[in-house]
């Protein structure tokens, strides 16, 4: 009996507050927008029984999805989200790998502190970390002041409200997610393998590419997915740092819902975003699974 309660309580909680809401999104994505409260039809009429249910199902259609596929805005938003997420994942890797590598090479007594320094921003408010960049990247911001002062540029650069600012924001906020798994992989690495490679005539650079990189592959893959997956649906960064022409699907969904109040289209946007995410999520899970099996 106790076991039943133990299973049932979290189970029912998740069914009611995770699974059912998602099915509602799916259902509304097949409904039509209407000027009513709530603003869509048809409504589920349980009182009408089976006939009512059949009538309800027959009114559902893929109209919103057809609308999405015909309007270039949504295509562009999905593609540009994929592009922004992909480019910023690569940039985060390029910034994060040397940090993780430096941490793994650092003397033992520094490591706990270095690790703490990477984790600390992760606990700090995401919103505040994005906000900090507004003052740096704006036209009269610190970066422009500094560049003008050094004489590298003569007129302020327009960085805030462009895609560049979005890239910077994503790299900055997701950096710990990239550094930590790579560091974990590098830390476990056996240093004698590098010595062996060098004894066998490898230069230090080629030993790095032939030994270190392959051995940290699992960490690199995990880090890339941990950045790519949340970056794809990102809302806060494009809306605070991006410009009006920065198209990201999280922002489109938000505006479709709050500004246009078109719930069925917003729901259809959400369903397609999820379909796009299934592939990277499955690949990520597989990588983690392989990792666990190798450790055992």
């Amino acid at each position: 009996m106790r076991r039943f309660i133990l299973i049932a309580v979290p189970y029912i909680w998740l069914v009611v507050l995770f699974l059912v809401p998602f099915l509602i999104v799916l259902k509304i994505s097949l409904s039509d927008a209407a000027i009513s409260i709530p603003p869509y039809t048809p409504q589920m009429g349980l009182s009408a029984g089976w006939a009512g249910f059949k009538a309800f199902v027959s009114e559902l259609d893929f109209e919103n999805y057809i609308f999405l596929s015909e309007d270039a805005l949504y295509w562009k938003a999905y593609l540009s989200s994929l592009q922004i997420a992909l480019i910023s994942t690569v940039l985060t890797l390029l910034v994060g790998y040397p940090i993780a590598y430096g941490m793994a090479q650092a003397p033992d007594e520094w490591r706990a502190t270095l690790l703490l320094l990477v984790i600390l921003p992760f606990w700090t408010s995401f919103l505040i970390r994005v906000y900090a960049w507004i003052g740096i990247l704006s036209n009269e911001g610190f970066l422009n002041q500094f560049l003008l002062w050094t004489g590298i540029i003569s007129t302020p650069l327009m960085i805030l409200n462009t895609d560049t600012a979005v890239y910077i924001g994503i790299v900055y906020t997701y950096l710990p997610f990239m550094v930590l798994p790579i560091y974990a992989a590098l830390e476990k690495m056996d240093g004698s393998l590098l010595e062996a490679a060098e004894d066998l005539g490898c230069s230090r650079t080629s030993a790095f590419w032939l030994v270190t990189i392959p051995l940290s592959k699992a960490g690199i893959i995990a880090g890339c997915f941990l950045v790519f997956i949340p970056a794809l649906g990102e809302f806060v960064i494009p809306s605070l740092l991006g410009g009006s022409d920065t198209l990201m699907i999280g922002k489109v969904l938000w505006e479709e819902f709050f500004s246009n109040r078109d719930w069925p289209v917003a729901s259809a946007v959400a369903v397609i975003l999820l379909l796009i995410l299934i592939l990277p999520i499955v690949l990520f899970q597989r990588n983690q699974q392989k990792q666990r099996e190798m450790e055992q």
Partner: protein
Amino acid sequence: MRRFSWFNATSLTLGFAFLYLPMIILIIYSFNESRLVTVWAGFSTQWYISLLQNQSFLDAAWVTVKVAIASSTIATVLGTMAAYVLVRGGRFMGRTLFSGMIYAPLVMPEVITGLSLLLLFIGIGLDRGIFTIILAHTTFSMCFVSVVVSSRLVSFDNSLEEAALDLGCSPFDAFRLVTLPIIAPAVISGWLLAFTLSLDDLVIASFTAGPSATTLPIRIFSAVRMGVSPEINALSTIMIGIVTVGVVTASIVTKRSSIAQKRDEQAAARTA
């Protein structure tokens, strides 16, 4: 064999400068006298004073803390139960669905979680407010708690629990007296994680909060959309300060206790 080269030193210096400079600038300019946030005009604490007199920020902060405490506590209980079921529960009907529902919210975009919960609350006619934010935060943070706790449950020896059961403990007592003390550090870090996630959340709270309840991130977001303001800098500094003190204290405490534990283990090994 480790070689800490100049290259490593440079990449660490640049990396940490990148991570910390934005926050340091933010903190310094929260003490700026001028309303222009990028021009230094002298030291002043006036923005802290005007922040503390801003009732709408204080109200939002209070709502946020209430939501965070309630949701992280419920999430810790539910998440620990879920972790226990997943690791020790054996087979039961719908186990695959259950573990799917635990892992899916971790990777679900916040906009989708928020949208779907809002549609549920409207569908069942639940008035939006503090209560609905708590429900929403509990749901996604219980999954994080359960991942943290289950990694601890996996790594510890099941035979301790079985010994307690053999010696006549009821399953509940075995959990309370043996399992819980062992997994306690994971349960506490799960609670802290849930608490921070709740404090930090803007997107899900924006969907599930009604007009009656505004959390601090929602309040900050609407202020930040208007541009940089010194009050927000002051508020950010306070929040960064609290987090820094918390994380540093927690890491010192964990380090001390792990040293003490090692000493005990060594002492036990010597006597044995």
